[in-house]
């Protein structure tokens, strides 16, 4: 019943997909580093971090 769909729009090459994946991994790693950094800094500064004037 359904016709074979024609591919429209931008079709990524394998190379582009590989590079997109590499960029995504790099962003994930950066965010992971930020999480660990905030965690460590909170431990170092202690609860006072929440009570200081801004």
């Amino acid at each position, binding site marked *: 019943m359904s016709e074979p769909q024609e591919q429209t729009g*931008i079709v*990524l090459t394998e*190379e*582009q997909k590989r*590079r*997109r994946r*590499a*960029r995504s*991994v*790099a962003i994930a790693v950066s965010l992971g580093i930020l999480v660990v*950094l*905030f965690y*460590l*800094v909170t*431990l*170092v500064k202690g609860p006072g971090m929440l009570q200081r004037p801004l």
Partner: protein
Amino acid sequence: MSLASQSENTYAQFSAAEVGDYLALLKPRVMSLVVFTAFVGLVLAPSPMHPVMAFTALLCIAVGAGAAGALNMWYDADIDARMQRTSARPIPAGHILAGEALGFGLLLACFSVVILSLLVNLTAGALLAFTIFFYVVVYTMWLKRWTPQNIVIGGAAGAFPPVIGWAAATGGISLEPVLLFLIIFFWTPPHFWALSLYRADDYARAGIPMLPVVSGERETRRQILVYTLILAPLGVAPWLLGFAGPVYGVVAVVTGAAMLALAIRLLTEPSDRAAKHLFAYSILYLFLLFAFLLIDRAMGAHLGLMG
């Protein structure tokens, strides 16, 4: 032109940038000197920092410097493409789109300034924001294409990192970090003008009013010597003013004299080779000054513990 922009458009439909292209936007070699001088400023400061906080401060300074580099490459992509030295940078090489570099730079600039301000202190964050602004807007957008004094005034951006490091540790600024600022500030013109002497064709082609292009090579060599005459005593000043001990003093006198000798040789026996020597040595000179400030401080702390 139309062919080039057409193929660029086809290419640009979806980003083909490698992670390494993004890292190249951060100017890693400049960043290493920024981190090093910021580290020295941070360690010399009288109030010791918790290692995690020191790491946070240096990370923010490094990322902020990288953001400034990316924004510089975004704005300067047109002239980078015309210069041999810079034509392989990610944007002129076609690896990354100008818009990607702009977004990347703005994002990192905001993150680094906000995180440094919130986690470390507001003074350091404000100084980092000002440094990025100074490098991108004052130097890149305004001075670089307009005046041969571009790198003299713009050099202030490169001189700020030790001040930011000091401010991260103490929350303020005093005479010592200002002295470190002045050393880098007066080091920048001889360093860059030495480079521009043997790259003058490049700068002329790109239409950048570097001193050798505008005022000639002889005038450039003369000014290199003038700035070196100010720089060498400034290098010794931390010892004379009592911020550093005799080991630093001896190193500063010897390396400063060598810098001066190379600048004089460049003036009396002009050649590309002499300019290259001065350029290469200037990097070593700045590195040694800051490294021995660290070593001196480490030895002083050791002696203090012994006594």
